[in-house]
C-alpha cells in the first residue's frame, strides 16, 4: 500500500494555520469558562453585579479623608 499512501501525501500546514484554528477554539473555551464561573453573591440574587456594587457603596458611611484635617 506504499503507493497508495504516497497518493495521500500532503504538505504540513503553513505556519500560523494551526494557531489560528486553535484561537477559534479558545473563543469557545473562554465563553464556556465564563458561563460556568462560580457565581458570586450578586449572581445568586440575580442582581446585576455593577448595580449592586453601586448601591453598597452608597450605603456605606463616608469616611473622612485623613489628609483633610
Amino acid at each position, binding site marked *: 500500500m506504499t503507493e497508495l499512501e504516497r497518493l495521500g501525501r500532503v504538505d504540513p*500546514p503553513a505556519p500560523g494555520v494551526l494557531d489560528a484554528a486553535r484561537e477559534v477554539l479558545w473563543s469557545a473555551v473562554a465563553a464556556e469558562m465564563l458561563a460556568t464561573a462560580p457565581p458570586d453573591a450578586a449572581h445568586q440574587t440575580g442582581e446585576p453585579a455593577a448595580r449592586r456594587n453601586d448601591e453598597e457603596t452608597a450605603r456605606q458611611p463616608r469616611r473622612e479623608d485623613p489628609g483633610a484635617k
Partner: protein
Amino acid sequence: METDGVLIERSARGRPDAFVEVVRRHEVAVHAFLARRAGRQAADDLLGEVWVRAFGGRAGFDTGHDDARPWLYGIARNVLRAHWRAARPAGQAAIAEAVDPWDDVIDRLDSAAAARTRELACAVQKLPPEEREVLLLVAWEQLTPAQAALVLGIPPGTARSRLHRARAALRPVLAREGT
C-alpha cells in the same frame, strides 16, 4: 501520558481548557485529513470549525476510547460534507460522493505524476465510495479497520469486509506496480 478520553472527560467536568491538549495532539493529522480530501486552502479554512464542533459535542465522546482521532475524523467528515453542500449547486453531488470527491484528488495530482500513480488513482476511483472511504481511512489516516468503522458509524465487520473488497480490487494494479 493521559489518554484523550481522560482529557475530554475532564474538559466536560469543569475544565474546558483541557480540550486544547487533545487538539494539540491531533491538529496536524486532522488538517491532513481535510487537505487530502478538499485541498489545502479548504483545510486551512475548516480546521477551526472542526475544533468548535468537537468541543461543543464532547459530551457525546465515549471516554472509554483512548484515541480521539476516529471521533475527530467523523466530525471533520461532517464539516467537509457541509462545506461541499454549500459549495455545490443542489443536486449536483450525491451525499455519498460528497464525502469522498475522488475527482478532486485526481485533479490535485501533479501533472508529472508517474503513470503508475495515475493508474492506481484511476483504480481507486473505480471503487464504490463506501469501500474507498474505508480503504483511505486505513491507508491514509493509519487507522485500524475498527477505528475506520467508528468514523463511518458502521459495524467493524462491515468495515473489514469493505476493506477486503477494496484491496482485492486493487491487487492487480498493485501487483503490476510491484508494491
